[in-house]
């Protein structure tokens, strides 16, 4: 008899994994609300809004990093276009947030401000239903998934891989960025969406809303990790890894790599979109620069720094790089690009397995080093 899915999911994490997830969930669901809402600002344990926004943002990035790792670390497909799916999720949810502004915009119109500004009389067809939360939640999942599916289907069917695939994903996100920069596209052009007021009729700037969004992001990350863990330890995951290592051999054995790759690719895009949808209400703005080529490549460096082919690695990488970014851009803005550039080079040259790989190497190094020391001591004694 097959083991039920829920049991199999539960077995995906080992006890350490569950302990860690439990700790993170407890922090996000219990500690953060108490420390942010109940403790007065003077208390040294009080968490500021700035902190919650920053960590919430990085949690979303971490989801993207895990999604990236799923296709790059396990599938060997480097996408330079994941910023597109992230931004699409953000834009889809941003449509809902724009509608929630209602008549409180600067022009007091039913239409979003930028449409009034463009002198549009009614909403474009694709805005239909955007005032319904459920419909938009569906859009967040379906639109990026559809685009990823169609694009991936044709690309993988033609067996485009390696750098070729990277370059055309880059072209895809670049084309989308140009498209979204146009005012006529109907997504606010240059400025994108901003000035959000409410979400599900709750004020978006209220501390409670922020705490809820933060908790949701943390839960989404745990869920993403669980799902990814389940996938990579399953039979599917092993075939995906086999395709990464020797695609031709997998084909000769009788598998069609197309569907294996396509599933990972589409799922990855959907995870990115969810992250984008969680990101936009916390940050309060979405604009086409999220689709820029540079942003998408940065996602790859989170994964590379943390460690490809491990699931905790991308999360660590996303946190390390983004914390460094927010520290550098405030303290030494002119050195941030130097740091990031060096990080790219150092991570690829010296950290092929990322920080996680370094850690395990160090640990085994300590063990081996200890043995050597013992051997040396023995040698000296003899």
């Amino acid at each position, binding site marked *: 008899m097959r083991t039920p899915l829920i049991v199999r999911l539960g077995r995906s994490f080992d006890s350490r994994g569950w302990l860690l997830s439990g700790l993170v969930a407890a922090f996000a669901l219990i500690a953060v609300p108490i420390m942010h809402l109940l403790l007065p600002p003077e208390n040294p344990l009080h968490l500021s809004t700035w902190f919650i926004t920053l960590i919430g943002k990085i949690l979303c990035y971490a989801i993207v990093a895990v999604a990236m790792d799923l296709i790059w670390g396990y599938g060997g497909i480097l996408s330079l276009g994941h910023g597109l799916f992230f931004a699409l999720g953000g834009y889809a949810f941003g449509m809902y947030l724009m509608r929630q502004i209602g008549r409180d915009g600067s022009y007091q119109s039913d239409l979003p401000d930028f449409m009034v500004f463009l002198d549009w009389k009614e909403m474009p067809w694709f805005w239909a239903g955007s005032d319904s939360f459920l419909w938009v939640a569906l859009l967040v999942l379906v639109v990026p998934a559809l685009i990823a599916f169609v694009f991936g289907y*044709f690309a993988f069917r*033609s067996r*485009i891989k390696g750098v070729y695939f990277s370059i055309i994903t880059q072209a895809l996100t670049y084309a989308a960025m*140009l498209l979204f920069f146009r005012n006529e596209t109907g997504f606010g052009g240059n400025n994108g969406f901003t000035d959000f007021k409410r979400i599900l009729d709750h004020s978006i700037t209220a501390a409670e809303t922020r705490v809820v969004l933060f908790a949701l992001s943390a839960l989404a990350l745990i869920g993403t990790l669980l799902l990814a863990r389940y996938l990579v330890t399953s039979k599917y995951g092993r075939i995906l890894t086999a395709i990464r290592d020797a695609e031709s051999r997998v084909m000769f054995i009788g598998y069609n790599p197309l569907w294996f790759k396509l599933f990972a690719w589409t799922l990855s895009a959907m995870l990115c979109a969810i992250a984008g949808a969680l990101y936009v209400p916390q940050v309060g703005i979405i604009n086409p620069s999220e689709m820029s080529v540079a942003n998408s490549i940065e996602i790859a460096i989170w994964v590379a720094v943390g460690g490809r082919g491990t699931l905790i690695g991308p999360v660590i990488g996303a946190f390390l790089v983004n914390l460094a970014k927010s520290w550098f851009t405030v303290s030494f803005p002119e050195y941030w690009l130097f740091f990031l550039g060096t990080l790219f080079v150092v991570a690829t040259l010296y950290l092929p397995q990322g920080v996680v790989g370094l850690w395990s190497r160090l640990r085994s190094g300590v063990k081996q080093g200890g043995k050597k020391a013992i051997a040396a001591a023995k040698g000296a004694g003899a």
Partner: protein
Amino acid sequence: MRTIGLLFCGWLLSASCLAAIDPVLLKPLAAEDSDTRIAAIAALAEAAPEEALPILQALSEGSLAIAGERMVIVDGRRVLDAASNAEIKPAPGTIETIGINNRVRRELSAAMAALRLFSAERAVRWQAAQEVTASADAKMLPLLDRALASETDGEIRSRLQMAHAQASLGSTDAEVRLAAVRVLGESSDPRVKQLLLPLTEKRGDGWVEPDGAVRAAAGTSIRAIEQRLAWAENLGRAFTGLSLGSILLLAALGLAITYGVMGVINMAHGELLMVGAYSAWVMQSVFRAYFPEAIDWYLLAAVPVGFLAAALVGVLMERIVIRHLYGRPLETLLATWGISLFLMQVARTLFGAQNVEVANPAWLAGGIEVLPNLLLPWNRIIIVAFSIAVLSAMWAILNLSRLGMFVRAVTQNRPMAGCVGVPTGRIDTLAFGLGAGIAGLGGVALSQIANVGPDMGQGYIVDSFMVVVLGGVGQLAGAVWAALGLGVFTKFLEGWTGAVVAKIVVLVFIIIFIQKRPQGLFAVKGRFVES
């Protein structure tokens, strides 16, 4: 022949040998009424074409004056009698300058242009012929007839014929108008089209042009002109497409080498373009500071400097980073992206975050007017020529030199090349340096038409990859066709959809194209074992 030459010399050197003009003709020039004065200008020009020019010139410059009963020309301290052109001594006491209004000035310059049609110098006549074409009307017909009779230069003649036809349009004789409309149909000037258009229009109840045959001929002529105009427009588009294509080619050629030979995706390629562009700026500053008299030639100095600077950066990149990453293309991609961020910040630190200003040298300004509505700017022509030169040099290096032979050998089969003694490591460094240097040359060229700033490279990276991917890896010919094709395609599309949509369409087209032909336009023939 010699006598004629002497005569002309005499005419040019001293106006005093001219025959005297009847003062009666001059008198109305000073009249109060503009109509009278305009009539006088025409009469004077007709009666004495050669002698009239200095007088009209004086009138337009405001140095024609009236002194008592005589018309005089004030020339510095001297006062000349307008009729005889002899100096008046002693100078008359009261001199009243004749002023002119805009209407008279317009007629005057037309009359003067007409008179200059008889100048001995070809350049003056050519200039005059162009001026009369702009303002020809029926009153000028006799003058144009005479000018046509004496004109020998073919180019000026055809111009005059055009002016003649234009002037004849106002004729009362339908036959004359018909002939004129037919002649005008051979023009390719948008202004002539504007001139003919009213002839086919209705005003009130009747036609502007009463004669049906003339009307029909005008329609035919307009269509002929429109065809020629459209042709010129397409020619212009093809040219801008060609120049865009050569820019793309310059940007992509270096990439074609580094990617083709080493399989290295160099994301810092755009920044190598930037290095070249900044070299042009540095050379401009150096010339400004030390050789201000030769400032126009800084660009020539920038070409080798740009090449060497970018090649140096490229060699350093290869030795320090890329060498360790061969066979790991995705990692190379990320590492070179890191280098590109690094180089951008270096440029920002050294030269500031703002764009720097690189001026076009004087010899790049202006252009060639091929057709009345088609001007080919020099800087674009030079860029096309430059990219052809770079392409030929690269072809020569790859196909004729020993280095090129090694490079090709390594491209085709790295282990075998190594086995027969090709120093593959050194070839990699040199080839990478060459590719980087060519990017530097592209940057020098770009500095003449685009903004030079720390972020400039980013804009070209996607485009140049598209060229390489579309053309097929390891093929110069592929890169050339892809670059030119993309350039021309983009420009024609731009005329139809606007720049941004054109760009999106091109990108989507390439994405779809790659699905159909993953090896690009020109795949290297042969059998390959996939990894």
